[in-house]
C-alpha cells in the first residue's frame, strides 16, 4: 500500500514540464472518440478451421492539458467462437495518466485506474534516452484482477510486476532492437527480445521470449497505423482507432511474458509516450498523423 501512496503522491506533485514543445502541447486540449477492431484467432481443434473472436473497441481519450490524459475503452463482441467468457460487452480500460520528465533525464508516465488485460492499479513507465540510439527502460506495476466478463470480479491489489531493459535504435534504417527481463502480468519471470523495423505507417517485428512458466516461444507482430492520417483541430474529434495490431505466436503461449496496456491505443510503433514529450526512436520519423490547421485569410 505504501508503494501505491508513493506513486500517487508523485503523480500529483509533478512540476510543469520544462520543454517548450510541451508548453505548446498544453494549449491543444481535445477529446477524441474512436473505434477500433480487436481481431483474435486460434487454431486448437480440427473441427473448425479457426476459432475467431472479433470485438469492436470503442473508446475515448481526453487530453486536458499539461500532459494529463483520461482514457477509456469498452469491448463489444461481434463474433465469438472462444466461449462464454468473451460473450458480454464490457469495460476494458479507464485510466488517468500523466507524462513528465524527471530531472530532464528520465521520461516517465504514471497511470492509475483500470488497465487492459483485466488489471487495475497503478503503473509507472520510465524511459531514459542515453543517446540518439541507446535508451534504458523500465515498467513498474502494482495491480489486481478486475473483470466484468462474468459479472463483477475483483481481487486485491497484490501483484508487483516489473520489467527492465534496453533499446537500440539505428536511425539510418529505422531499426529498433529491444530486450527486457522482468516479472510479467501472469506472475511468470521471463525475457523478451524483439527486433523491429519501422516503415511508413507500419512497424513489423520479430520476437522471441523465454518464460519461467511456458518456456521458449517466438513470433512476429505488425502494427499498422490506420488512416486518415490528417486530423482536424476541433476540440471533439471522431475517428478510427489509430492503429491495428497483429500478432502471431508459434506455440500459442499467449499468457507468457505479457504486460497490460495502460493506453487504449498502445502499440509497438509509438511506444509508451506521445511524440511531443519524447523525441526518440520512431518519434524522429515523419509523423503518421498530422493536424490540419485552417489557414486564416486576411
Amino acid at each position, binding site marked *: 500500500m505504501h508503494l501505491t501512496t508513493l506513486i500517487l503522491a508523485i503523480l500529483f506533485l509533478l512540476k510543469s514540464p520544462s520543454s517548450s514543445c510541451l508548453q505548446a502541447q498544453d494549449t491543444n486540449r481535445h477529446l477524441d472518440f474512436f473505434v477500433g477492431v480487436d481481431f483474435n484467432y486460434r487454431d486448437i*481443434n480440427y*473441427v473448425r478451421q479457426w476459432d475467431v473472436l472479433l470485438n469492436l473497441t470503442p473508446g475515448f481519450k481526453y487530453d486536458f492539458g499539461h500532459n494529463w490524459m483520461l482514457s477509456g475503452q469498452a469491448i463489444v463482441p461481434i463474433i465469438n467462437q472462444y466461449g462464454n467468457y468473451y460473450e458480454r460487452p464490457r469495460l476494458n480500460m479507464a485510466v488517468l495518466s500523466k507524462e513528465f520528465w524527471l530531472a530532464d533525464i528520465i521520461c516517465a508516465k504514471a497511470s492509475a485506474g483500470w488497465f487492459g488485460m483485466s488489471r487495475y492499479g497503478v503503473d509507472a513507465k520510465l524511459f531514459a534516452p542515453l543517446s540518439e540510439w541507446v535508451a534504458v527502460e523500465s515498467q513498474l506495476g502494482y495491480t489486481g484482477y478486475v473483470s466484468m466478463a462474468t459479472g463483477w470480479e475483483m481481487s486485491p491489489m497484490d501483484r508487483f510486476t516489473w520489467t527492465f531493459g534496453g533499446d537500440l535504435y539505428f536511425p539510418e534504417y529505422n531499426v529498433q532492437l529491444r530486450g527486457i527481463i522482468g516479472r510479467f502480468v501472469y506472475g511468470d519471470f521471463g525475457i523478451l527480445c524483439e527486433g523491429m523495423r519501422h*516503415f511508413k505507417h507500419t512497424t513489423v517485428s520479430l520476437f522471441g521470449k523465454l518464460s519461467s512458466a511456458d518456456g521458449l516461444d517466438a513470433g512476429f507482430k505488425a502494427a499498422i497505423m490506420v488512416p486518415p492520417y490528417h486530423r482536424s483541430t476541433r476540440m471533439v474529434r471522431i475517428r478510427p482507432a489509430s492503429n491495428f495490431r497483429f500478432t502471431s505466436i508459434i506455440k500459442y503461449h499467449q499468457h507468457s511474458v505479457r504486460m497490460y496496456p495502460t493506453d487504449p491505443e498502445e502499440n509497438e510503433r509509438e511506444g509508451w509516450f506521445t511524440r511531443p514529450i519524447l523525441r526518440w526512436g520512431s518519434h524522429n520519423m515523419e509523423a503518421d498523423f498530422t493536424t490540419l490547421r485552417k489557414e486564416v485569410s486576411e
Partner: protein
Amino acid sequence: MKRIFFLFALCALCAFASRAQQYTGMSGMLHIPSAEMHDEGDARIGAHFINKNMMPDTGFLYEGAKYHSIDYYVDITPFSWIEMAFTCTERKTKGSGDFGGYGRKDRYLSLKIRPFREGEYMPAIALGWNDVGTTIDESATRSDVQLYFRNYYVAASKHFFFSGHQFELTMSYRHFSRHYNSKWNGLVGGVTYRPAFWPKARAIVEYTGNDLLVGMDILLWRHLFLQASIKDFQYPSFGISYHTNLFGKYYSY
C-alpha cells in the same frame, strides 16, 4: 516507330515488378527458388491452390490417396538482402464421429538471404531455407512433425535485356530433407520472359528436377498479384495475393 518504342520504354519504366515462388509466398519462380528478391519493404499476403501432383508424397494422404490443398501466407522483405515468409498449408484429417476433411495445418517459416547482388556480368546469388521451424496442431503428437516442405538451396539468377524484353535465367541447387521429396533434389532451373510491351506479366518455364512446369504471373493495379502454372500440361495450380510496399514506393526495374 520511335513513338511506339518510346511508349514501350515508358511502360517498362512505370512497371511494378513482382515475382514469386507463390506456393511458399517467397520470391522465385513457380516451384523452384531463384536469387531474385522482392524490393525492400515489400509485403504480401495471399493464398495458393496446390495441385495434389505437386504435394509431397507422404504426409498429405487422406484415406490412402493424395489430395489437393490450399496454403496461405504472409511474406515480407524488411531489407533488400533478406526475405521471410510464414506459410500455412491445409491438411485433411479424420476426426471423431463423422468428421473428416480439411482442418489441420502444416505451418512453416521460410528464409532467404542474398549476399551478392546481380552485377553487370555476375549473377545474383541467394541462399535459402524453407520450413525453418515447423509447428503442429495442439492435437498432434511429436510423430506428426514431418518437415514436409523443408529444403535448403543456393540459387543464381541473371537478367538479360533485348530491345526492352527481359529474360531471367536461374539455376539452383536444392536439397529436401525428406526422402519422399528427393525427386525435387539436385540441380533445377528455369527461364522467365517479361515482354517489353506488357512488363507487368511474366512467362515462366522451369524444370523442378522431376517435372516440367509452365506458368505465368501478373501484377494488376499495383497490388493484385496472380500466378497460374501447369505441370506436364495436365495438372494446374494457381494463386492470388495482395502485394504492397511498406515504404509506399513502387520501384521500376
